[in-house]
């Protein structure tokens, strides 16, 4: 086909496009996806712990009665749970497991499936990764119910924050449960043919 003809033939023009400079590498793509999943999990853990700490700080500052055993114990428990969570999720937060030999030696699909399963398990367990925040909510309820609570005026000081956190927590749990279901579907799809 001459240049003149090909310049007038849209099909030939289309099929003779210059090649893309960057080649595709499936291993790298899978690795990147896996890292994206890890990154989402890590930021969710840190956000949950951060929200819980912010919550107890505001509650302690604005409405908790001074020198009362109940809030002190509650806040201590929240802090302890936050520390335990940080320890529990340390591999996920600091990415140490990405260099595990069995992980890097796994075939692409297996490698990716493991990450999907880890993330699904993580999302299915809101009591664990949202624990400090749930506990902080429980502490607030306990303070409001206690006899030493000074009344509606104190509550009003933190009401916007309480509403925001309750909505955020509720939405977060719903959204993550949905994500867990979607991940399970993806894992099922991958498992279905692997069993054949």
């Amino acid at each position, binding site marked *: 086909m001459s240049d003149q003809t090909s*310049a007038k033939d849209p099909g030939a023009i289309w099929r003779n496009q210059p090649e893309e400079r960057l080649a595709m590498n499936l291993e790298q793509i899978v690795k990147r996806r896996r890292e994206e999943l890890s990154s989402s999990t890590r930021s969710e853990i840190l956000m949950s712990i951060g929200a819980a700490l912010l919550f107890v700080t505001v509650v302690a500052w604005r409405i908790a009665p001074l020198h009362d055993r109940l809030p002190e114990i509650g806040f201590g428990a929240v802090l302890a749970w936050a520390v335990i969570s940080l320890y529990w999720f340390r591999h996920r937060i600091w990415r140490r497991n990405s260099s595990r030999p069995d992980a890097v030696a796994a075939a692409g699909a297996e490698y990716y499936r493991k990450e999907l399963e880890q993330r699904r398990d993580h999302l299915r367990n809101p009591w664990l990764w949202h624990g400090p925040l749930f506990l902080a909510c429980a502490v607030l309820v306990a303070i409001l119910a206690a006899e030493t609570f000074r009344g509606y005026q104190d509550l009003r000081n933190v009401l916007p924050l309480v509403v925001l956190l309750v909505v955020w927590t509720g939405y977060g749990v719903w959204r993550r449960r949905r994500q867990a279901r979607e991940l399970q579907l993806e894992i099922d799809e991958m498992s279905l043919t692997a069993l054949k």
Partner: protein
Amino acid sequence: MSGTQSSGAPPRKRDELYETAIREFGRALDRLAAGYEADPEKRHDLRQDIHFQLWKSFEVFDGRCSLKTWTFRVAHNISVSYVNRERRKNTDFVGLEEIERTARGDAREPDIDHERALRQLWQFVRQLKPLDRQIMICHLEDMDAAAIAEITGLSPANVGMKIHRIKNILSGRFLEEKRYV
């Protein structure tokens, strides 16, 4: 592609299917991505997405259609989802009918050079609505109406009608009278 048809794809088979698909249609997939995204960096992301989803999709490939149909169906679906996500940032798309109405006497340049023609073709393809774009790209890849119908899910008659329009538009733009009128 009968050799690649099977009832489900175990992991190793899936990798083989992916490699076969990329070996046979990799360049066409790159061109397809170019029909959906102009920006090189974003196009690279789109290509990555296409490759990743295609590789994953072979887990459930059951051989009821050819490897080519499957590959292009997946690639177009991913690209259409991408276009829909990006739609807010883009200008509105137009249909073939609209282009047909406004294209008369437009852009007739007999001595058009190859690179310029390609740019013009890209521009033209990228302004199309997703379904028209799928048909257009498949047509430019030299697929027949039956193959395009299988990929898009439209009836062959509908595809035939759209292809007729595409040929008219292309003949107006590229003066390929013998082949396209």
